[in-house]
């Protein structure tokens, strides 16, 4: 379970997260929608401690992310994250990208990590690209590689930050399909996305972010088909037309 309590975060003078309370249960899929600059990425990166915070608490399985005594590297093993920008390691082939962390972080044997990496790459449909370098892969393939790389650490949570936003439209589907597959396997996920139809059908709940706060949160169909808040309605009208 991920619990976020009264989260506050500023960059210098700029107050970006203005008190967020949110709980994500094991097995749940939550989509975050909202305008650009509303703080979605910042909040996501607070969950695995990539950003510091000013106030509040983030608990992952009751471990306080911002407690000095917490081993962040250990904690990050159970939280996978995939970003909007492609960030496969360009000097490593696909299989080496995926095998690296299990080897150097978990200390697994090289041979075992290669088997593990091949398994995860096959799982996301890249079984025929094991020895390709990222520069030889399409955007959609690079994002699936990033997903496989995160999955190889066998995380309990997956965070996705607009993983389809940089993709050519014809490549969006394959990445969305991969996330659907993870949902079917029971993965707990927080997905920041602009793909509203995907959010409606693939998530349990949807939260609408507005200016550093959660303006509305609820059942996915309700929030998207029948929003209670005017701001949500205005946002959806803007992005759906």
């Amino acid at each position, binding site marked *: 379970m991920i619990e976020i309590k009264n989260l506050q975060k500023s960059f210098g003078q700029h107050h970006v997260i203005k008190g967020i309370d949110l709980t994500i249960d094991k097995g749940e899929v939550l989509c975050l929608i909202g305008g650009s600059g509303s703080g979605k990425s910042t909040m996501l*990166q607070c969950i*695995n401690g*990539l950003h510091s915070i000013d106030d509040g608490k983030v608990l992952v399985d009751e471990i306080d992310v911002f407690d000095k005594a917490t081993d962040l*590297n*250990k904690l*990050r*093993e159970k*939280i*996978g*994250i995939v*970003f909007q*920008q492609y*960030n496969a*390691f*360009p*000097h*490593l*082939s696909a299989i080496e990208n995926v095998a*690296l*962390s299990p080897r*150097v*972080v*978990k200390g697994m044997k090289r041979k075992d990590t290669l088997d593990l990496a091949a398994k995860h790459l096959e799982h996301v449909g890249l079984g025929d690209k094991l020895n390709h*370098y*990222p*520069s030889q892969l399409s955007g959609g393939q690079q994002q699936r590689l*990033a997903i496989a*790389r*995160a999955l190889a*650490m066998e995380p309990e949570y997956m965070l996705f930050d607009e993983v389809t936003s940089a993709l050519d439209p014809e490549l969006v589907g394959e990445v969305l399909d991969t996330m659907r597959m993870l949902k079917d396997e029971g993965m707990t996920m927080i997905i920041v996305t602009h793909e509203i139809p995907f959010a409606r059908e693939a998530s349990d709940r949807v939260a609408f972010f507005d200016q550093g706060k959660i303006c509305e949160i609820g059942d996915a169909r309700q929030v998207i088909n029948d929003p209670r808040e005017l701001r949500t309605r205005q946002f959806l009208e803007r992005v759906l037309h």
Partner: protein
Amino acid sequence: MFGYSFHWRTVWQEIPQLAEGAIVTLQIAVFSMLIGITLAVLLAVARRNEGSIASRLASVWIEVARNTPCLLQIYLAYFGLGALGINISSYAAVLGAIAFNNAGYLAEILRGGFNSISQTQYAAAHSLGMNSFRVYSYVVLPQVFRVTFRPIMNQSMWALLNTSLGMVIGLKELTGATQFAQSRSFRTFEFFLVAAAMYYVIAKIILGLAALVQWRFLKGGR
């Protein structure tokens, strides 16, 4: 031709002395690069943490190494330290001074390499559970060395040529050994032609070693 007649026999007799000098030259060039690269990584990483004491010390090192003559650096290592009561061999002085010089230039080269790597690479690596040491070792530095490989090779050629300055403090590296040998026979031209050929061969050996390193560790990817 030009009234100069070549006499190769004397040179031939001194080849063992020249070869010894060549080995000293090759050793200093290679070791000063290995030490220089190690120090340069530390300097370049220290410099990234702007405002820290480590960063300022690194800046001073880089400035001094790059903006004073290498000859002066060798004098300082040999006579300067000597004046302070620290006596080191001319070999150690030349190796130390050239390593110091290399570190400064290489740190600046590496800085450009670091700047070419996006922040998201660090974020991605950290999010996979890697600590900073692992992020640098497995993700950042391998990429930095790929993009800076050519300028690093240029620097290693400078390091090779700079070893000839060792002569001024009496080190019998290739130039020093040649100078010594020719002064007994006065076949200056022949001796320095042979020395030049030896420098050329040493340069090729170093480039060959580098190609080996590149093939073994830096293959693939961008």
